């Protein structure tokens, strides 16, 4: 077979992304172990992460609320295969509906037995209760929540 001629191109770029007022307040909250959300004045939906405007009503959000660090795991996947620069698989990423939130918060979920791939959904079925675990060192970023763990009452 003929080889396909290719030449390597490499990018190595760093960026500083400006969080703005809304996400700065959210990140400040995480540093203090608080999950802050905000509310659309027109449809009363509660956004976490917060957003400056409601994407449905085009209204500026005005009211802030603190949500409990607990909620329901609505959906998750186990990454068996990752990518360069990413976390080391296997790891589970889920969508958590915090109590009182209208949106899902994506985050890592622990507590699954990865040696039993066939039972993953049965281990944490939709609606399972989960709780945020705080990172010991927090710097105002989403990984100030280390992950969510099953909340077995």
């Amino acid at each position, binding site marked *: 077979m003929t080889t396909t001629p290719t030449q390597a191109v490499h990018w190595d770029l760093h960026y500083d992304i400006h*969080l703005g007022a809304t996400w700065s307040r959210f990140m400040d909250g995480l540093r203090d172990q608080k999950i802050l959300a905000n509310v659309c004045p027109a449809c009363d939906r509660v956004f976490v992460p917060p957003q400056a405007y409601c994407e449905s009503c085009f209204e500026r959000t005005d009211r802030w609320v603190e949500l409990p660090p607990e909620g329901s795991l609505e959906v998750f996947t186990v990454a068996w*295969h990752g990518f360069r620069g990413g976390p080391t698989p296997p790891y589970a990423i889920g969508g958590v509906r915090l109590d009182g939130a209208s949106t*899902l918060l994506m985050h890592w979920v622990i507590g699954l037995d990865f040696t039993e791939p066939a039972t993953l959904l049965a281990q944490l079925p939709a609606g399972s209760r989960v709780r945020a675990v705080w990172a010991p060192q927090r710097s105002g970023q989403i990984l100030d929540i280390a992950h969510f763990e099953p909340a077995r009452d």
Partner: protein
Amino acid sequence: MSYRAAVVGAGITDATSPRKQQLSAVELCQQATWAALDHAGTTPDTLDGIVVGNIDGFEGTVLGARNLTRALGLGADLPVTIINTGGTTGGNLMQVAARMVRSGSHARVLCLGGPTFFGVRDLQSAINTNSPMIIEQPLGMGAYHMGAFAANAYRQRYGLTPEDLAAVVVADHEKASRNPHAHLRYTVTEDEVVNGRPLSSPLTQPMVCPVSAAAVAMIVADADDVDGLRSTPALIRAMGMSSDPYLGGGKGDFAEMQNLATLARRVYALADVRDPAAEFDVVEIFAPYAHMQPMQLEALQLAPPGGGVELIRSGATSAGGSLPTNLSGGPKCTNAGVAGELAPYAYAALQVMGAAPEPIQVPGARRALAHGTGGTFFQFENLAIFEALPRSDR
């Protein structure tokens, strides 16, 4: 006044794996462009615009389309519009070209989608850079990780098994085996799909699209100014696009495609489609992962909620069935990035023009539905309905 827009020519190159591709992106784009011009029976000097797409970063460049366009050899004076909407770039090319023609500012526009993914060494890592920064990007999600969310939610809602997802893949490969332009042209069994290498639960490697290298081009023209053209035009009867919130967590429900359902109602109303399952002769939808095609069939009112897999298993969506769907093999078997998302439009238009590759042509197809979707969590949808437009001059 406004004008009617139609597809009057389409060109699709053969697809290969990146490893086997001997042509550059420019050379593939040239091939597709000249095939589309040839199909329409026209020459570059009749074009008055080009709409071309790329996805910054995925190709190791930004605004690559700008440089590519001059290299096509179509002349120096062609106005260029660049679409750069990530995964939906391909589907949006025709939507933009059709708006240009409908407005009367242009009469004959080339839409061009090249291969987007075939240079990057680790596509999942590139796709993670495309996921929402700050909030979701740090979690480590490539394309199939994000796709898997819906697969799991859908499975749980309707009690579907891995074998059910595999049945979709088996059907797609069977169709692709008959499409000369498809990339993965081998057939697979349910066992092979279920027992494939696990990527992100519940998706195995065979349930996920390949990275393909190919290009697709279409010519969108004033439907009522086809003198001198060779083809039977595919009238763009209706089209539209719709978006969910950008953050994956903004989706209301991962187990159903609410955004697509909303868009479908809007586009069906424009075309006066009242009974979708009975009114389309052929359907091409952008379903790169196993769970997507059944979910999309449901959102498009072509199958009842939770009934997508059963419809596919019944043979209704196969050649000769009542609702031939993705006879091209779909993006599950050929996905060349921007070209991959333009492909459903090209195949659907070719079907009603009577010019699809012979082994996949639906005899006498008159009305087709074409769909594209993209975004990290497939937040963005686009849709169009084509109708055969018999020429009054023959």
